């Protein structure tokens, strides 16, 4: 048993925090909410130089050979800073599946470019059904000689408007196939949606988009296995982001209770506030541990279905509780757009929903328990 990050991870965390404090202040976060791209190519390049895009990739593809716990340390800092942009879509949702399921040719084509920060990718799974399971996929892929013609609507695709390539799930006969699709393919139409978090989620309509058969990731018809794995990785990555986000909400809130006077006292001396803060602290510790445990399992390449779903179930709910308490304690001030509290509150909702909310993951846990 060891509940601490190792030295390298602590160093990564420390340098990431410093870097993001400098490069991703809240002003930048606010600007990116307004910005149409929603990210800074300049910052993207610098992150690539730090090796972040290739953190989980082997050295042969230009990566650092890190594991999921390394990633967790980094993501916690990104969550704390509310870093906008296509980091997860490009890395966890795209480079990881290519690394694990791609052909050698695909790996050589995509991974080094991703590691260098020269390629932005994203994942197009969700459809109008809003479901996270295989039955939710209605986009169709029809074989035509050496190509596929893909038609359907993908929703809430993160950063699709700036992505160079998509990893897209489509129904081929009774199975699901995953395709690597060039964003410039004719027949693809991308519309930015307007969201609570002002993150950049898109509608992507594919109308007979032609994709060469060699761009299948994994096996034809066996794509859902990969998609499930991506959803697991995605879920735990969201947990790590939330963890960093909530840690910051807790700190910000506790700090405020030590400054704000009401009724002639610091509000942090009121038992009602103390107990609310205590409950936040319990939630945050729980979020960390349950997330770390799942990330550790993944880093050890152990089966982690139940651990990931436990983490996402707990974290999704805790996220709402902690942010709401943060707002309660900050009072009117936290409601103003100038205050950071509302940034965290809005982002937390997007993370809660991404890759399934509490009820969704509890049902997976139930299945894993043999219920």
């Amino acid at each position: 048993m060891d509940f601490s990050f190792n030295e390298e991870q602590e160093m990564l965390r420390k340098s990431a925090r410093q870097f993001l404090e400098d490069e991703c202040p809240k002003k930048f976060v606010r600007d990116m909410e307004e910005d149409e791209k929603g990210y800074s190519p300049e910052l993207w390049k610098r992150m690539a130089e730090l090796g972040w895009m290739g953190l989980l990739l082997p050295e042969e593809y230009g990566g650092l050979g890190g594991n999921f716990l390394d990633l967790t340390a980094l993501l916690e800092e990104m969550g704390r800073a509310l870093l906008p942009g296509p980091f997860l879509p490009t890395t966890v949702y795209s480079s990881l599946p290519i690394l694990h399921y791609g052909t050698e040719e695909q790996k050589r084509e995509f991974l080094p470019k991703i590691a260098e920060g020269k390629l932005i990718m994203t994942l197009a799974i969700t459809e109008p059904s809003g479901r996270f399971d295989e039955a939710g996929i209605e986009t169709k892929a029809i074989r035509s000689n050496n190509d596929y013609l893909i038609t359907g609507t993908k929703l809430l695709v993160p950063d699709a408007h700036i992505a160079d390539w998509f990893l897209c799930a489509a129904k081929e006969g009774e199975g699901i196939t995953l395709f690597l699709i060039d964003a410039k393919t004719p027949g693809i139409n991308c519309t930015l949606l307007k969201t609570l978090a002002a993150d950049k989620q898109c509608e992507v309509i594919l109308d007979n988009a032609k994709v060469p058969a060699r761009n299948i990731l994994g096996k034809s018809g066996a794509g859902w296995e990969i998609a499930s794995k991506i959803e697991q990785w995605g879920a735990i990555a969201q947990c790590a982001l939330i963890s960093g986000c909530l840690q910051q909400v807790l700190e910000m809130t506790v700090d405020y209770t030590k400054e704000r006077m009401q009724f002639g006292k610091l509000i942090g001396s009121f038992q009602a506030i103390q107990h609310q803060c205590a409950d936040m602290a319990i939630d945050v510790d729980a979020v960390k541990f349950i997330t770390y445990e799942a990330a550790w399992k993944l880093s050890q390449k152990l089966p982690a279905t139940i651990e990931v779903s436990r983490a996402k179930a707990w974290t999704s709910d805790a996220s709402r509780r902690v942010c709401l308490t943060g707002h309660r304690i900050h009072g009117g001030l936290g409601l103003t757009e100038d205050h950071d509290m509302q940034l965290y509150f809005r982002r937390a909702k997007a993370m809660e929903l991404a890759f399934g909310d509490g009820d969704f993951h509890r049902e997976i846990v139930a299945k894993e328990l043999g219920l």
Partner: protein
Amino acid sequence: MDFGFSPEQEKFRQEIHEFLENDADAKGAKEEWAAGNGYGPHTWVIMKKLGARGWLTPAWPKEYGGLGLPAMYRALAMEEMDYFTGRGSRGVLCGIGMTGTVLLGHGSEEQKREYLLRISRGEIDFALGYTEPEAGSDLANLSIKAEDKGDYFLVNGQKMFNTACHYAQYHWLGARTQVVEPKYKGISLFIVDLKTPGITIIPIQALGFKTNQIFYDNVKVPKNCLVGELNRGFYYIMEALDHERTYTTSRLNGELEKLIQYAKTSGKSKDPIIRQKLAQLSTEMEIAKLFALRIPWMLDRGMRPTPEAAILKVFYAELQQRVINTAQQILSPYGQLKKDSKWAQLDGEFELEYTASLEGIITRGTCEVMRNIIALRKLGLPAR
């Protein structure tokens, strides 16, 4: 006991309902409020139309533009208005709920004549001027200063979150007229024309609504603008707050009904977990309704519903959070899409409400302060 309304009450409600349903300005006002900006031109028109019928202040005496009816009629009128005007017009407006209540009880005859009729006719409104940067829950700590200069009061200082300042004609100002311990014994209430020189209004954009910061720089307020007795303002505020905490549940209930309808048409109502959640919300909504109606029922019996208003406030505000969260879950993942986005559901209402509803647990007394009131005033627990 009786959990129904009398035929007269039903008729009264129905008249307002039909009027609002068919009036074009009512629809316009609804859109203005939905944008979070408060009164716009349609709102002013509809307020005047409502005022002309006595519906803004049915419980006021006829001489001041009311209908001389019991408080229960006021509750019914508010329910109808809230259901139609939608978010923003939560509960009461400052002019009717605070200014009107205090003036009726403690205003001079001159003030009553000057303001009450215009309020009841929907011609003017007041911006609530209590909160300051260092006086939120701790209202008694307010520090904006009103000095007696013989002919006038000289006011200096600032207020935060004075939401109606950008459209109201008057400021309903709580100011310090004496530095004294306990602090609440040195507060007085004033009516200040917002066009008085020396007043600066700075807009603040908050989650889902627009509010203001207001600065007083050597503002001269005439003597006759003091309301009631000097240094008795805090007592008046507390008395009237029981009115301002008089929520109606029709708006939130309307949201729940939309949600139930959405669950039915989208097929999500087949999910046993969602069924449980909606059934629970519907149960809690019924309780909120009863808590809300208890207030006018008590007022009509001459009782002062202080802890009961606190119970309503806590229950309503926390129920609102549960409704919004269940909505987000049922709409998931579409709940995060804004009103004017493609694929937004139910006109993006619950995206807006997700943030705008936060105001409910904080303003007009936090839920924590409300629980203190319940413990001390209803249960008689020791203050220290």
